[in-house]
């Protein structure tokens, strides 16, 4: 995984600079660019887009650890597989990989680290079949410290290779937190799902996640170069330009030009995350999802589609304890129906959605 040699990074940075038309700058200055300035999507080549075999990529994130992302990911994957689709679930919680356990795959022989280390060049050798028909997994297990700290080039390589997997649906189980890779994969997917539990800690983290994704999306959009300085300002919550909320940013951008404001608005409209409420116990818990949806709309201008909720069920911890997939271990749990409902709804409503990066 030493793919981050200065020359490689520099090459990409060079391309990027040329693309952004800011003119060539010296090698020394280029090295000072932080990873946050690099746009991974700009490097997904046309050829990799043309060789796409995967129908849709779903990503499950949420900011807080322990809310059930792996559970939701594995359950959705199983649901899709049982509906007849070919599914590959990828554990992107590097350093915290649990997906294999929730799918009942004890010790996978090949994992993502084979790809990240450069031992293999494509993702196909990393795929491991599960006991569930049509469902396979790329596990993050057996990872080394290096894997947990992969860099920009690894991310780009993954983004290029994922659509070429021999499968219909790819489910990305993202890690907790709001680090750059997590956010970028969330923005990369065709369908991005936020998992929340009805607790203030989860809600706070979710908002932090959405905020980060929101600004990152704006930062990566090519049409907003003229107001990028404002976006950078807004990302610093203690900025002294008085930009506190997205509305403030919009107002500032609009002042530069209404045209830029329009472009910003269009960019945000393309960010359409979905919401899954997990571990609900009461109707009030379910309603929190609706409230979060309203607040998101009001604060960010984002349309969060509340696609469903999953009740708290003690079957979950029991299944995990047994290291067996919930959907198979407790087929009579109401959760199975709920998960299937969510899957069907997303397929029905967003079956043909593709992210245009």
């Amino acid at each position, binding site marked *: 995984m030493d793919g981050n040699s200065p020359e490689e990074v520099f090459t990409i940075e060079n391309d990027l600079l040329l693309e952004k038309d800011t003119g060539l700058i010296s090698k020394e200055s280029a090295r000072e660019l932080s990873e946050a300035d690099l746009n991974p999507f700009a490097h997904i080549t046309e050829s990799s887009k043309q060789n796409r075999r995967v129908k849709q990529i779903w990503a499950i994130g949420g900011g807080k650890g322990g809310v059930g992302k792996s559970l939701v990911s594995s359950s959705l994957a199983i649901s899709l597989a049982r509906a007849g689709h070919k599914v590959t679930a990828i554990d992107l919680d590097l350093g915290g990989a649990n997906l294999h356990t929730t799918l009942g795959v004890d010790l996978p022989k090949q994992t993502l680290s084979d790809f990240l280390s450069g031992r293999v060049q494509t993702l196909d050798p990393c795929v491991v079949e599960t006991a569930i028909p049509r469902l396979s997994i790329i596990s993050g297990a057996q990872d080394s410290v290096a894997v947990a700290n992969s860099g920009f080039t690894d991310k780009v390589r993954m983004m290029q290779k994922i659509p070429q997997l021999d499968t219909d649906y790819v489910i990305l189980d993202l890690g907790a937190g709001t680090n750059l890779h997590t956010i970028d994969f969330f923005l990369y997917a065709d369908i991005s799902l936020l998992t929340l539990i*009805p*607790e*203030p800690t989860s*809600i*706070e983290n979710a*908002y*932090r996640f959405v905020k980060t994704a929101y600004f990152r999306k704006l930062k990566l959009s090519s049409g907003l170069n003229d107001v990028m300085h404002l976006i950078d300002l807004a990302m610093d919550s203690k900025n002294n330009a008085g930009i506190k*909320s*997205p*509305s403030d940013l*919009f*107002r500032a951008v609009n002042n530069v030009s209404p045209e830029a404001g329009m472009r910003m*608005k269009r960019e*945000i*409209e393309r960010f359409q995350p979905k919401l899954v409420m997990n571990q*609900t*116990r*009461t*109707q*009030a*818990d*379910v*309603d*929190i999802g*609706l*409230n*979060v*949806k*309203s*607040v998101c*709309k*009001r*604060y*960010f*201008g984002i*349309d969060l*589609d*509340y*696609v*469903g*909720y*999953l*009740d708290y069920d003690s079957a979950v911890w029991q299944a995990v304890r047994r290291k067996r997939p919930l959907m198979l271990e407790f087929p009579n749990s*109401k*959760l199975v*129906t*709920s998960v299937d*409902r*969510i899957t*069907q*709804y997303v397929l*029905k*409503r967003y079956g043909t959605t593709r992210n245009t990066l």
Partner: protein
Amino acid sequence: MSLPLEQDTQTLYDVLEVSPDASPNEIRAAYLRAKSAFNKDSLALYSLMDDSDTEELIRQIEDAFSVLSSIEKRRDYDRCHGLLSMHAEPGSGFGGGRVTSIARDLGHSDKVISIDRVPPMEDTSGEPDLLVAPRTDFSSESGSSLESFQRRQAGTGLSSQINSPMFSNPTGPGPSSTSGYSNGPNKSLGQSAQGTFQGNSNQTQNRPSPPTSLLRSQIRPAMNVGLPTFDPLVDDTIRQLVEHEKDWKGGLIRQIRELRKVSIEELSEGTKISKSYLLAIEEENMGKLPAPVYLRGFLVQIARTLKIPHEPLVSEYITRYQTSRAGK
């Protein structure tokens, strides 16, 4: 979709997150939903907005509702904003308008299939035939059906939204919340108890008195009836009265109504009971009252509106009614 960013171009419908052709029930439900989302105790605000941010929003929500809940004001607003009045209420008075919106809520076409109709009294000069109002459960503060719940969550788009099936199947998963609701009449309208905001009603019990912007003069909507004055002193007096009451006569109803500063007109508007009946009830004019099955409904409705327990009022009153009829 309207961004919050465009404060000046958002409509009242955007504020409540409903489509311009929403029914009064949907508007009310959306209003309660919006209030709950931006209530300062709302978990959904945590870490994102503080009181100063939400103050303005709550004000907008209240204003929006005060306009959109009144048929006349809403019509005027729609006209001014070039919105087609897709919810145009034909005919005059409450009767016609109400029927149309009930029909739409039930998902029927504009033909109402069955109406509970109270037989008119002998001398109803100039009085329109009144329909018995569908049950609005005032104790819960939200009479929204599962349907409007899912319609609402599906966004403000118009007809072709696919609703999340999670919310559309009352027998599907979800907390089996059956406790706490005397929802018999609701069920007859095809609503399911599961969709109701049990959580919300629990919250309202613990909340302090409603914001003072809820001026009675602003509350004219069909659902939020001549709202009794929220005066703790009055509440206390009434509580005392109720505690010590033995007879439960019409006079008590009148007393409480007056304490709450609700006029007969307002009570009639809110409960859909004709003024003549209301007066007859208060004056114990048994000859002018309808059959017990209707009378019972009226009494419950009145009690609910005036925020007093309907038992033992209803049983006492009905007993007295029947005795007097038997005596004839």
